[in-house]
């Protein structure tokens, strides 16, 4: 599912490395925590796995496809199978919450009636029904995070990557999200979640990837 062999990622504009000689293999239907101190390279690894950047060196395969030398078209198709919850949400401020969440389905050319049904279902699940026609800047940080979660989950991705997805959520909502992620894993999705919350990690024990100075130093535990 995910295979990284001696992957290095250079920092833009500097001679330093964000990630160095990274080796990682994750199977399908797995859940992993990604931890490490600030500046360790967690966000860089997640950007790499969500195909927002390419490795500087090394081999990388995602969803059974070699990506380090893949064409733009291949990367584009892979991106549609990846759900990414970034730390800064990356919502389009001029679009309504509905349009933001509906985007992955529209890119998959789903019927508009199906899109409406799916979006309303996920908005209902995340308690955002009253904000359907609102715009992201009108929502609180926690609500925006839930919109980002909805957008990442609605396309039922084969790979779900989340960068601190619960930092603006309450405890109940965090558990709701983690439960949903466990369900996705049981349906075949591979999930990687970067977090600083040891409480959550204790509640949902799983394989933990520890990043230190751009290097994967430790792998512990299993789902």
């Amino acid at each position, binding site marked *: 599912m995910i295979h990284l062999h001696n992957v290095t990622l250079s920092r833009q504009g500097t001679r330093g490395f964000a990630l160095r000689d990274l080796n990682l293999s994750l199977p399908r239907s797995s859940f992993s925590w990604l931890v490490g101190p600030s500046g360790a390279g967690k966000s860089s690894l997640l950007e790499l796995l*969500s*195909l*927002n*950047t*390419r490795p500087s060196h090394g081999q990388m395969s995602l969803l059974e496809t070699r990506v380090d030398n893949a064409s733009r078209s291949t*990367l*584009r*198709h*892979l*991106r*549609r199978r990846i759900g*990414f919850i970034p730390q800064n949400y*990356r*919502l*389009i401020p*001029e*679009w*309504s919450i*509905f*349009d933001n969440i*509906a*985007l*992955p389905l*529209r*890119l998959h050319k789903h019927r*508009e009636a199906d899109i*409406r049904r799916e979006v309303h279902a996920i908005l209902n699940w995340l308690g955002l029904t009253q904000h359907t026609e609102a715009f992201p800047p009108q929502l609180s940080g926690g609500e925006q995070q839930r919109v980002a979660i909805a957008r990442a989950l609605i396309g039922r991705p084969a790979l779900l990557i989340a960068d601190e997805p619960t930092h603006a959520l309450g405890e109940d909502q965090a558990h709701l999200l983690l439960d949903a992620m466990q369900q996705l894993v049981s349906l075949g999705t591979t999930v990687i979640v970067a977090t600083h919350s040891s409480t959550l990690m204790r509640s949902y024990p799983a394989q933990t990837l520890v990043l230190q100075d751009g290097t994967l130093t430790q792998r512990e535990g299993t789902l």
Partner: protein
Amino acid sequence: MSKRLAPSFQSRSLPLLCAFMTILAGLALAGLSGLQTLENIWAQETPNTATIELPPDLPDLEHQTQALLELLNKTSGVLHVHQFSTEETQTLLAPWLDQSPSGNSTQLPPASLPLIITAEHTAGTALTPIIAAHNASAVVEENSHWTERLHTLIGTLTSCATLILAITLGTTSLTTAIVIRRAVTTQRTNLTILHGLGSFPLTLANRMALHAAALALLGSFIGLILLAPTIATLAHALSPLLLSSASTPTESPAFLTLENYTSLFSPHFWTIFTLPFICSAIAWATTQCVILIWLRRLP
């Protein structure tokens, strides 16, 4: 609920820019058309005429005149020969003699008047050397010289108008590109988000290009509306020169019909109405290029 797949293109300066550029291009095009119409009319209506003057003190003037008339009538390419009467010569010379053509108080005696013959001929017939070989004292004035000079003048002005038009179109493309690039920059984050979700670059470029084209079309139409009174004024001013050869330069019709306008600016009249579409096409193509080139930088 709108079906959104790409960010909208927002720019206040693009319609304004297109309006100004349409006015500039329209004026250059109208000027170019007017000049070309003028050139065509003059080319068609100005006859090739040679005016031959025999001095009054020439010995055996009557015989020499008859010989010259016979020579002109026999020369191929000469269409019509006319010898001026004394009255016609008096009238012709009146402005130089500071006399009213109808006044006869201080008329010159016929014996001191030059003898004038006009010969209309086909284009390309060179009468000057023929007449000079026959009678060295005859002075020949070909009006085709002036027609050629006017053609040269109009040709120069036409080149200037064409150059202005080309510069206007070039400037439009360049400034449109700058304005569009600035507008795209404001949408860079959104484009990056959409790219990250797997959007097709062509879908993004097409949708934004359509918005840009619509804005350019709107601005350009406004420019065309603003241009109309200027064109009408210009047409009104030029109409005595262009509408009919029978009109004198001081005559100006009170009202010009659409037919008048089309005949005045005939070579490019309808091209003026294509300016909004040209502006729109420039905006569409520029937006496509700017977005596609920018998206190429992303992985």
